[in-house]
């Protein structure tokens, strides 16, 4: 029987000619990652194993991203635990000031390449699947085992195919495609499965825009998100890759558990309402509710890339953030931060009255740098709006693309971007 891209990658990593959904395999991993929240637990479990060294220090990355620069004594202690372990083991490590969010940083520096099996102790590890790799989020214990042995147990997932025909409308981007998709299939619509994305609408999309889609596979319950490798992928990978990559194509007779087809030209700009990424509505409906807001967050592993910031900047150019609204803009990595300093975006956002910060996950998970008070409302370009996610359990988060978020910051309520242009 033919195999999907994901099945081929997994088969190649357990030395089998064929795997099928449901097979339990012990699988080699090409790269392993943990961050400052998940690494301390992973290190604790690693020590229990009685193994002295990680399987390959050049294939284990520890990235401080969530509570850095450290927000309190406890988070400083966690970052310290991770730093000392990285130093002891000689792992790939990025210090605060040279780092950023791992899901953007690692692929942009070529640590993960097409055809890899990549596991990370963070649910949004799936982001990197847009490169045609099998990227899977796991817990700290799983990652400790992968760090020690270079292997992980895995149940081969079925693959769901998502095809986007046609071209995107103006003001509709990859964020809208994935929000719309999760709204259709639900927050467990891809539970335990691989989401394979393809179609005309993705063909001209940059890898950075594609990452936004695979990023939110986590919000549909998926085990991995994957996209076929094309010229756009190779143009991204070639200048940065640290290893040889492998391109896997699906067999013509491979089996998909289901195929979902969309007419991308009919998908509207989409917003996810509190308290679920699956509670989506077209922006055209949401604006009728005249939703006033207190905060806007532009950043995160979903939409903190340079082109996301450019999209927001086009809306904010020459304008001011609405009175009584705060707008927080955070580039996802220090590389992007540096580019915004050089190309004028940092100045543009600051002139507009935004709080503009060094790279971090920041307010996305309500750790620090923009926590919401009771009753407050935020429009965010991040990926989750669960109750309490960004602060008080009675604060609300609306998820949207960068243009919609920027427009909300200018108007002080949720509006169509054209309304503020």
């Amino acid at each position, binding site marked *: 029987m033919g195999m999907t891209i994901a099945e081929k990658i997994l088969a190649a990593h357990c030395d089998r000619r064929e795997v099928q959904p449901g097979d*339990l395999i012990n699988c080699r991993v090409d790269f392993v990652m943990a961050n400052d*929240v*998940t690494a*301390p*637990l992973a290190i*604790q*479990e690693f020590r*229990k*194993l*009685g*193994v002295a060294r990680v399987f390959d220090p050049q294939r284990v990355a520890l990235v401080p991203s*969530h*509570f850095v620069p450290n*927000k*309190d004594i*406890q*988070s400083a202690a*966690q970052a310290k635990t991770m730093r000392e372990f990285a130093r002891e083991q000689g792992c790939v490590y990025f210090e605060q000031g040279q780092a950023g969010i791992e899901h953007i940083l690692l692929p942009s520096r070529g640590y993960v390449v097409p055809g890899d099996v990549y596991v990370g*102790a*963070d*649910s949004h*590890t799936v982001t990197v699947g847009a490169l045609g790799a099998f990227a899977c*989020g*796991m*817990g*700290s*214990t*799983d990652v*400790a*085992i992968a760090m*020690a*042995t270079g292997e992980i*147990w895995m149940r081969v997932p079925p693959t769901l195919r998502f095809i986007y025909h046609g071209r995107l409308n103006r003001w509709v981007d990859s964020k809208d495609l994935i929000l719309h998709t999760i709204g259709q299939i639900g*927050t*467990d619509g891809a*539970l*335990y499965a691989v989401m394979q994305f393809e179609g005309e609408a993705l063909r001209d999309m940059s890898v950075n825009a594609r990452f936004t889609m695979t990023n939110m596979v*986590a919000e549909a*319950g998926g*085990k991995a998100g994957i996209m076929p490798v094309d010229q756009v992928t190779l143009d991204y990978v070639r200048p940065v890759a640290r290893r040889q990559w492998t391109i896997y194509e699906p067999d013509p007779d491979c089996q998909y558990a289901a195929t979902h087809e969309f007419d991308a030209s009919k998908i509207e700009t989409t917003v996810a309402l509190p308290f*679920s990424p699956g509670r989506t509505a077209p922006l055209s409906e949401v604006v009728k509710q005249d939703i006033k807001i207190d905060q806007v967050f532009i950043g995160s592993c979903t939409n903190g890339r340079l082109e996301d910031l450019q999209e927001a900047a086009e809306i904010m150019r020459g304008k001011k953030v609405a009175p009584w609204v705060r707008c927080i803009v955070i580039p996802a990595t220090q590389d992007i931060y540096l580019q915004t300093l050089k190309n004028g975006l940092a100045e543009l956002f600051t002139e507009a009255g935004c709080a503009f910060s060094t790279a971090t996950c920041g307010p996305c*998970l*309500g*750790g620090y740098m923009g*926590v919401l008070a009771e009753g407050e409302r935020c429009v965010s370009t991040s990926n*989750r709006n*669960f*109750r*309490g*996610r960004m*602060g008080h*359990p009675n604060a609300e988060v609306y998820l949207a693309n960068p243009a919609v978020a920027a427009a909300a910051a200018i108007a002080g309520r949720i509006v169509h971007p054209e309304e503020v242009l």
Partner: protein
Amino acid sequence: MTLRGHVHKYGTDVNTDVIIPARYLNTTDPQELAQHCMEDEDPEFVRRVRPGDVIVAGTNFGCGSSREHAPIAIKASGVSCVVAKSFARIFYRNAINMALPILECEEAVDGSKSGDELEVELESGAIRNLTRGTAFQAKPFPEFMLELLQAGGLVEYTKRRLAGKA
């Protein structure tokens, strides 16, 4: 192994942000995490939970972040087992890896209310609601998962495997 305790029942999509909010992720101490277990879903949970109690919930329990702090908080709060209609995949792995028993059984979820007393037999997946005198059968664990649970979790299992190799 037979577990017995009272039910704390919740709805669908109980996510890791409400099981243990990120504002408490600056520690890995199980007892500290347990003090905030379920805080944004049910602020009364920590006061009411007794050793052996069972969390019962709808579909997609544990969705969201990969934080292992969520099953750690549940286990350290005294909960003996979670019964849900389905589990999010990372939570499922995390729970099995740390030997927190979790069972999938739609009928037991529909047939139980908060406060009911449940008896769960882990190996067979038999669930009895002692308050209502009803019985249910959960999906049995695949053999490999049962091995992990019986070994006391993935670390113990891997230690044995590595020792066997050496």
